[in-house]
């Protein structure tokens, strides 16, 4: 069935609707992406509906099914779930002929566009290596359950595998508890790596465990450990400003949201001629050196 032909959700006044399935609406990056989508939607005359799944993949599938079968939206945006976990939601969307765009998932049958979750991971680990060097100990705070962190982790693993002189310790944080876990793992790791035991770094697969790590560093008064993170939420940017976070790859959620929305609109317009694509929105590596410039360019970044 061609998506355009059956565009079922067309409401009486012709307004089209995008159904957004959020991972955790309370997360800053999720919020930025939603913001980007809403901006383009407003320009294009679309409505948006957001469902917060609170991280539950089961609810994500349920929401996609509701969007497809009863609300009959015109397109669905699903955030930060593995596409391989969306079988029933995708199959509902497919049978209703509704295009799905994914943020950070993979291109599978039914998904017309996605943003790469790996790109910022690659960028982060490359910049880490550039800054930190190729020798020393690194604590990686990973999270395999979330798709973004999952791909960032894969990028990280691929890069450090080529670094024989890096001793990597991996610890898996839990959600909820990500901040607390970041603190606890770090302080244990610090105990084993006292000051002077060589170059030390901590890599957080997103802001919050890294913030926990910084808290542990502050608690124990250590300043010899460099902390790296991805996402670039207000608290991470503030930490870069304060000098407690070495660098953070600011993920441009708003742009990613915009790209996804544009893809959704484009695929609805193009119908069967639409070619599935992956967007690679580069992050911006923010360090103490460029933070002021960055904040000038992105005045909202500290409080949105």
């Amino acid at each position, binding site marked *: 069935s061609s998506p355009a032909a059956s565009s079922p959700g067309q409401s009486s006044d012709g307004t089209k609707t995008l159904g957004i399935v959020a991972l955790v*609406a309370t997360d800053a990056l999720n919020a930025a992406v939603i913001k980007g989508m809403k901006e383009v939607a407003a320009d294009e005359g679309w409505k948006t*509906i957001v469902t917060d799944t609170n991280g*539950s993949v*089961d609810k994500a599938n349920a929401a996609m099914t*509701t969007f497809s079968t009863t609300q009959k939206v015109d397109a669905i945006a699903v955030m930060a779930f*593995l596409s*391989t976990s*969306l079988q029933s939601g995708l199959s509902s969307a497919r049978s209703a002929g509704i295009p799905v765009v994914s943020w950070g998932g993979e291109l599978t049958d039914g998904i017309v566009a996605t943003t790469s979750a790996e790109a910022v991971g690659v960028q982060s680990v490359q910049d880490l290596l550039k800054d930190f060097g190729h020798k020393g100990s690194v604590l990686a705070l990973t999270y395999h359950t979330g798709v973004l962190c999952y791909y960032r982790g894969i990028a990280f693993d691929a890069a450090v595998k080529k670094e024989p002189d890096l001793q990597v310790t991996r610890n*898996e944080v839990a959600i909820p508890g990500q901040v607390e876990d970041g603190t606890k793992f770090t302080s244990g790791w610090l105990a084993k790596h006292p000051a002077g035991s060589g170059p030390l770094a901590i890599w957080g697969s997103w802001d919050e465990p890294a913030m926990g790590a910084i808290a542990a560093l502050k608690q124990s008064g250590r300043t010899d450990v460099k902390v790296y993170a991805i996402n670039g939420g207000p608290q991470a940017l503030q930490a870069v400003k304060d000098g407690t976070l070495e660098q953070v790859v600011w993920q441009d959620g708003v742009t990613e949201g915009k790209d996804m929305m544009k893809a959704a609109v484009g695929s609805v317009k193009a119908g069967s001629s639409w070619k599935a694509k992956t967007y690679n929105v580069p992050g911006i590596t923010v360090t103490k050196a460029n933070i002021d410039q960055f904040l000038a360019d992105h005045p909202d970044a500290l409080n949105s």
Partner: protein
Amino acid sequence: MSTSPTIPNAAASPQPSPTPNGSGVIARDQRRVSRLLLLILSRYGTLIGLALMVILFTVRAPEAFFNITNFVNILSQSSLTAIIAAGLTMTLVVGEFDLSIGYAASFAGLLVVGFIALNGLPVAAAVLLMLMIGAAVGTANGVLVTKVRINAVIATLGVGTILTGLGFAYSAFPIAAGIPQSFDNISLGRPLLGIPNPIIIMVLVLAILWFILNKTDLGQKMQAVGGNIEAARLSGIRVDRVKIFAFGAAGVCAALTGILLSALLGSGTLAAADGYLLDAFAAVFLGSATLRDGEFHIVGTLVGVLIISVGFNGLSIFGAPSWAQDVFNGAILIVAVGLSTLSRRYAKAG
């Protein structure tokens, strides 16, 4: 936590005293009517809450909400929570507690897919094996609680944490390749009148558990154990066995939920079902305010699950702002139960 229902103590608190000397038949009749209303409200408060939600959503979104497709959606989304919550109900009926169910479901969902995709087991064999493992996990909980006498909170949290670790050791990565359609069909199939399989399985599981609880020796014994364990023991009931059975049932239900979830998702993912724990608890306790006063029972649990599912469904149809969804979900818990308990008090006083 207060596991055994305590003596209803309406008496303790100030109550509106009825007019002394009801003056005439009319006043008495009015009183009787309002008392009847309160009684209805107290038994069916949560049901009325559910009905109000349905009405609200229907009025606000008539086409999208009030139609068969959507109801089937709601039911099939409820079915997994209902199954795991029904298992939890069993442990609460015997006066215990199971915090491991969410982790056990995640573990089962990952392993069953692994058995099939990695170890090459046939689907039926993998599912059966997994249900047996679920029973074993539940039994382990039960033995820790009854024989080793570890508090259920600690025992089940401990077992759950261990399961999380074991799942992680088994595969830190989602298993998605090599899963046959026949496995997915466990959740996606619609063998009967187009009714999705999970709904059918839910009805079966709930019917069996309801029957056990209400129509068999074992069920009476479970209720007795939950009501007054010492009295149950002195009535010749093998209290430990009864409790272990309840934990075993909860383990099987958790495993079943995990399996259904993986079939629905099309992959086995770490921690995918962890979130069922809170939903199940909310549902079971919501349900305990339905029909009977503070007792845990299967029908109540189903009502509780439906309240949560209808709320989620309706709010996602509205596209209410996220914060409003949380506030609504929290408020519905309090209002639905509060309705029942308050009216129960006034009905008693009247």
